[in-house]
């Protein structure tokens, strides 16, 4: 990756974060998780996925599934930047005039399948990967899982099945931001060593920094990473990444800020100076 490419990715990720922050008002959004996976989503759509807004229905396209659907603002923001949807459409967030709500749905160009209930889209991705195998296709299937989502039994069912069917066209990316909704994963249902868990289920595992584009380039440059095995990429991330006043705070998960606070946070994104937030940010949805 050239320096120029890296700078472009970083600028794109900043603009996506601006969109995410702007969606955290007038009803709000799941800001913490959206910020943790923003770099991953930006990198996948910019450099990895064989898809563009012109080839959304192409038979040979790569598939992307967002299994932990509550971080969909990162996807909305990326889609707006890459031309999948009009930027002005982001202003319709939560409006009954559109369908840009708190979880993904397939009426948005680029979203293959709805999610919201955790533990579903690994199995849907397995079905797509199975069909590609049956037909001898070259498409690949990517699915982002949350680390809290790994509590769901259906994830581990899916891990067994994907390994049994040797789905080397399947890549699961765990957004390892160390938090579930209200608490740290390790304080509730410890996941470590999460990489060893996937390896024990027969997956090829790579663990990377989920905010470092150079590391992503190395990890995603060769897929399948292992012949006959599905790939798991454990991406260590920071919940709320980019906003020091949100980062790694258990009480800042879902947020509905005032317009003034949104302005402060947009400044904070560039200055790194913590904003003083008064809005109640921990809302259970």
């Amino acid at each position: 990756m050239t320096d120029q490419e890296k700078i472009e990715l970083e600028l794109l990720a900043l603009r996506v974060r601006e969109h995410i922050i702007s969606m955290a008002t007038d009803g709000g959004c799941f800001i913490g998780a959206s910020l943790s996976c923003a770099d991953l989503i930006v990198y996948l759509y910019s450099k990895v996925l064989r898809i563009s807004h012109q080839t959304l229905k192409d038979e040979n396209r790569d598939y992307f599934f967002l299994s932990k659907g509550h971080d969909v603002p990162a996807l909305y923001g990326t889609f707006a930047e890459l031309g999948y949807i009009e930027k002005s459409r982001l202003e319709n967030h939560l409006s009954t005039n559109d369908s840009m709500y708190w979880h993904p749905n397939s009426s948005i160009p680029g979203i293959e399948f709805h999610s919201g209930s955790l533990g579903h889209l690994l199995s849907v991705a397995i079905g797509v990967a199975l069909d590609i195998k049956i037909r001898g296709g070259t498409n690949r299937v990517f699915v982002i899982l949350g680390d809290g989502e790994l509590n769901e039994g259906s994830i581990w069912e899916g891990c067994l099945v994907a390994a049994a069917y040797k789905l080397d066209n399947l890549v699961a990316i765990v957004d390892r931001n160390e938090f579930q909704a209200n608490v740290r994963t390790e304080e509730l249902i410890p996941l470590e060593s999460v990489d060893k868990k996937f390896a024990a289920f027969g997956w090829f595992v790579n663990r990377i920094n989920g905010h470092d584009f150079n590391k992503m380039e190395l990890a995603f440059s060769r897929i399948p990473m292992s012949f006959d095995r599905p790939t798991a990429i454990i991406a260590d991330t920071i919940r709320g990444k980019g906003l020091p006043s949100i980062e790694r705070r258990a009480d800042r998960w879902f947020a509905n800020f005032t317009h003034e606070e949104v302005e402060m946070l947009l400044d904070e994104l560039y200055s790194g100076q913590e904003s003083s937030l008064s809005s109640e940010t921990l809302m259970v949805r």
Partner: protein
Amino acid sequence: MNYTADRRVRYRPKLSWFDRSKGALPMMTYEGKLKELADLDHRIVVMTAENRAAIRNLPQALGKRFIDVGIAEQTMIGAAAGLALRGRTPVVHSLATFLTLRAFEFIRTDVGIANLPVKLVGGVPGFLSEANGPTHQALEDVSLMRGIPNMKVFCPADQDELVAGLPHILKDKSPWYIRFTAMEPVVEHYDQFAIGKAEVLVEGMDVALLTYGFMNRESWYAKEILESKGFSVRFINLRTLKPIDEATILSAAKECSLLVTIEDHFLTGGLYSILSEILVRHERRARVLPMALDGRWFKPALLNDVLSYEGFTGGQIASRIIVALEEKKRVLFTDKSEIVSKDDSL
């Protein structure tokens, strides 16, 4: 009269050319029909959560289009949705109780919301789980599946009807729940299968028997007994519970003095509920005798013992209906209502 499981009744003797014992038409199995359809239509994939009882020969026949995910109903349904996204028609198999209960949210959320053409085949529903016990008793499957928007429900009386209906169900673009049975038929199904069309086997006026699935068998025996006692019976095999044949039900409500719903399902959410909804929606009154499991599981045992223990043999069903009809007659005589003359013939 001895109404045993093996007794076959042909209700239209004039069509004796159809008699299987003479080999006029070979018996088609579910598995054979599914293979035939899968050979013709390569979109069809057959899936199972390691329940191969009805599809033992399909792994060899279908190759990669046979997918066994192991004992993982949730993953099977999610993967079926994924396959359907790619244009496939997945036909998925598991025991009815595990399929509809363990994977319910996956069915509702992945198949139902997306309205994908996934066909859910639930094995040993209702009384057919025999001695397995309540863990295996699918007695709310119809209730749950019909409650999902887009989902349709097919409850074949026997293997013949299952085989006759299967091409229609697989061709339809909706998700379907098939309440599986491979029982030998007690009647020949002459009426061509049509989605949403009930099969009316006899057009009597005193009492209408409404049933679906396996309970067709015992209900048919009950009908024989009632007729032998001089009652005029209407026999309605609903075939699909969603969509349901409202016209046939409303005619029965208008023309017959008693409607009887017979089902191996909880009283809540099944045919009795469906009938009640239809009557209310159309502002009709009818006298209804429901026969279902009212808020309880059944005694686990071999099938015929279950039936007699629970009061669902043809003879027991007939007896309860006769009591209800006699009660009706007594009430009418007491009331001196004008319908008495009609019921007097009983």
